[in-house]
């Protein structure tokens, strides 16, 4: 991607993000967000992150033998479990990277 296109992405992405943050500060007390919108917006993080994580982890493993025995897929599953049990960012990171390194070192055995 050219440098100019990257700047375009940065400016447009940054502007849209700022407008989302500023939206109701600007509208101030004149308007409230309709209740149904709040209910829809709650599902934006899980919907988008799910659509990023699952293909991002699984697709590269589709071309390399058994999907479930792939170190990245296994390490992602382990970190999901750890994130769910601990809700701690540092522990999730340590568990994810640690299990990936371990699984990569024993990959020929999988």
């Amino acid at each position: 991607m050219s440098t100019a296109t990257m700047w375009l992405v940065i400016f447009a992405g940054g502007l849209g993000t700022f407008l989302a943050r500023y939206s109701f500060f600007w509208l101030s007390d004149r308007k409230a967000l309709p209740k149904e919108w709040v209910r829809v917006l709650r599902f934006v993080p899980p919907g988008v992150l799910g659509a990023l994580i699952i293909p991002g982890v699984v697709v590269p493993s589709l071309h390399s033998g058994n999907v479930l025995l792939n170190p990245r897929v296994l390490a992602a599953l382990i970190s999901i479990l750890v994130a769910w049990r601990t809700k701690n960012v540092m522990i999730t990171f340590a568990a994810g990277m640690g299990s990936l390194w371990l699984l990569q070192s024993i990959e020929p055995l999988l």
Partner: protein
Amino acid sequence: MLPIIPGLIPFAMIAGMSAIDAGMNPLMAQLYSVFVFAGASQIAAAQLIGQHAEPLVIILTIWIINLRFVMYSASLSTKLPASTIPKPLQAYVMTDQSFAICVGMFDQNQVTRENRAAFYLGSSVVPWLVWQIATGLGIVFGSVIPASWSLDFGVWLCFIAIMIPGLRDFPAVIAAVVGGSLGLALHNLPFNLGLVFGSIVGITCGYLAERSFGKKKGALT
């Protein structure tokens, strides 16, 4: 506020590294972090730039991920009294963490009304500084650490660490699983449209599940 700081550091470092991996120069990568200042979208867009996705799809992805700020903005604007702090500045420093902390503290009346604006600014500016410094560290390390360390995997760990604690009820899990499965099934679509369709259908299914079944809270925790 302090407990959120350590959690920001790996995210910010991965954000810096992924911007370098995407082909940005160090100055651009740092300014990217200043302009957008929203971790998940920064990392997602850097990934898409690296995959040579269509610029429009990348911009759309940033916007969709950050739509949640509209919800925070609506909530905070009713809780923050008028102050000398400019509203655009209040808006710019808004994060998931400062929103969660301030709404919690304000609702329990742990901060007096006249102190709210200052409390909000403080709990947003400190993470902003930490975020920018740690992004800078990621930019520096990103150019030196060898690929064999597989630190690019940290991108997915970031997303997992952001998403999983938020899956507190059944409809939220539906949104994530449907979004992810459809994204995977459609991953061959051109322009990374699988991500856009997957997200939109996942969000819709989560909303419909909540309307049909309610929140079913507690079942997963």
